[in-house]
């Protein structure tokens, strides 16, 4: 080892040690835990723990609620990611327009929900979504549409929570997209305009390729975020009605921290980890093919 290499190791050692202690070790332990039947009985007596191999995974596969949680989470991600990114991009494009005045004010106003507390805003949204007195149903009444039982109908509960989540998080990616849009080369834009490209054509062939990498980053982060959705259903619906908003993470929380089946909960965590890893891998492949990476 040269002196330079030694110095490099010395400098990185603290960080590596922290990563080992805070990330590698707990993840390995969780992995080990997922192969045991660690439950509340183990808290009573360690000798009650048995090695069960892949037993937890087999048990999960025959638990109806786990499949329901997977399906709910998939629905959250499939609807939520386009909704959230669409809202962010739309807002960023609107704000980017040269005719818009008081831009800083709009940016702050639209970013504000992102930094407010989930619980406080959830309480407000529960009032907005109230079937009988809520503002949203009042607005639907104006359009002479029938009222929707947002949080009480198993088919409306996921869209209702997605409305709330989208409103809450779109500000973050909006700021990221605003930064990306300002880097779109103006001369290309003007050249396209001179060549008679339409508004859509300019967006499709000039703006989109320029912000492609940012879009990829936003979608990777959003997919990972939506697959881990927990706090919103926890405070809005407690997983109901009829368990229609129980997500994978919610299921894991119940198993692990409410009922102390840490073996089972670790198995859920591992499955979720593999899922997110696989989807991210596919996304980066798409990004590479489009030369965004």
């Amino acid at each position, binding site marked *: 080892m040269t002196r330079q290499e030694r110095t490099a190791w010395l400098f990185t050692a603290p960080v590596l040690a922290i990563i080992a202690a805070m990330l590698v070790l707990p993840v390995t332990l969780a992995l080990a835990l997922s192969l045991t039947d660690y439950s*509340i009985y183990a808290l009573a007596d360690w000798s009650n723990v048995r090695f069960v191999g892949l037993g937890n995974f087999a048990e999960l596969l025959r638990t109806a609620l786990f499949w329901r949680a997977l399906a709910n989470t998939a629905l959250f991600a499939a609807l939520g990611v386009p909704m959230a990114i669409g809202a962010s991009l739309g807002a960023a494009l609107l704000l980017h327009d040269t005719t818009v005045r008081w831009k800083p004010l709009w940016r702050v106003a639209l970013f504000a929900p992102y930094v407010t507390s989930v619980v406080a805003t959830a309480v407000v949204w529960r009032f907005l979504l109230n079937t009988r007195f809520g503002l949203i149903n009042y607005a639907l009444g104006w359009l002479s549409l029938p009222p929707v039982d947002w949080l009480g109908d*198993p088919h409306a509960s996921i869209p209702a929570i997605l409305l709330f989540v989208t409103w809450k998080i779109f500000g973050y990616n909006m700021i990221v997209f605003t930064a990306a849009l300002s880097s779109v080369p103006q001369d290309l834009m003007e050249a396209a305009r001179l060549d008679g490209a339409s508004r859509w054509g300019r967006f499709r062939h000039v703006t989109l390729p320029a912000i492609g990498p940012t879009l990829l980053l936003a979608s990777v982060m959003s997919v990972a975020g939506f697959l881990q959705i927990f706090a919103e259903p926890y405070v*809005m619906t*407690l997983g109901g*009605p*009829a368990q229609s908003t129980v997500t994978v993470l919610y299921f894991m929380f119940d198993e692990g*921290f409410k*009922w102390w089946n840490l073996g089972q909960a670790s198995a859920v965590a591992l499955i979720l980890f593999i899922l997110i890893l696989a989807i991210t891998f596919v996304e980066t492949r798409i990004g590479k093919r489009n030369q965004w990476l």
Partner: protein
Amino acid sequence: MAATSCGSKPASPPLRFWATSYEGDYSPHLMPAFTAATGIEVDVQSVPSTAAHEKMLTAYAGGVLPDVFMLPSGWIGEFATIGALAPVPSPDLVTDIVPAALALAQVEGKNWAVPWAAAPQVQFYRRDLLQDAGYASMPTSWNAWREMGRTIKRRRPDEFVFLTLLNWPDTLFSMLYQTGASMLRDHNTRGNFRSAAAEAAFAFYLSLFTENLAPRALSTEVQDPFAAFAQGRYAVWPSWPTLLLDLHRRRAEIPADRWAVARLAGPNGPGPAAMIASNVAVSAATARPKAAWALVRHLTSATSELRFQQLIGNLPARASAWASPQLQAPVLRPFAEQMREPAMAPKIIEWERIQIEVQLVAERVVRGLLTIPQALATIDDRIDQILAKRRALVEAGRIV
């Protein structure tokens, strides 16, 4: 700082005490008398009841349980099994206890906690709305009770009658106790819901929803059930003694002459009903067992329990406290009667979870996603799955 603390002798840190819901909020009122008599300071923490179970388990796992804490009777077996509780050191702490409360608190005949208060489920009802419908008193049998609901519903079609929400398991469980459903079998290691008794309870429960007498709603949708009751959107609310405190605090919304209390209706008149009893327990890991048990003795004295009854409506667990004139108020009579007929839930670690899962299935029945026979089979399967570990340990002879 150092100079000022030199003269006085270092005070021992305060005892830590956790309690949930109103007991937690109002416990500080009981502490000055204790501190004055013993010189021991107590640090009271009110733990939100919805998160109490996981919070206390996590505290035990992390070795930070408080010296003394309140424990619902359903959790005593669980916390005793994991070794979190110190056994009650002297038998005189649990003499003079209402039999129902003591029976709920004991685990295999052993005392791990001292009963503090007893809360049988009863029904609060709107006297004025019943009178408008031609009822001077509350019907006691299921059929007459439901018929009364229909009469009120006919007069007020836009409102509901029974305030029982789809994630509150106690109404359904009271019905299961009333029909005598046994629920578990084989030394509490398997589900036993496929029975005529359970089916009858489910059918009656379901009919309240199909006839629109009760709302298809979760507690997350009814933000303020008390206000809904006060506004007459519900005429009957199966609930607990602590509602007496709400009725007192918010008497501007609903005057005292508009409501009354009765025992829950049963298939043929009132029977056993769900009962929550709160108890006080001492952590096995406490460094000051003497002070801790002194606090338990103070909290569960007849004087403290009567004070608590006045403050939050809780009913005393000390039998001698019931001789007090304070407890002869007519409004408390249904509670006293119901306490003589408590329902005994199986004392197994998993019971809390089983109740919640049964209610989840019941919700699916109410929403038309399952029929009752399907639901009962689903429940049995699910319980067998939840009890798998217990079954293995019972078969191995490690627990009973």
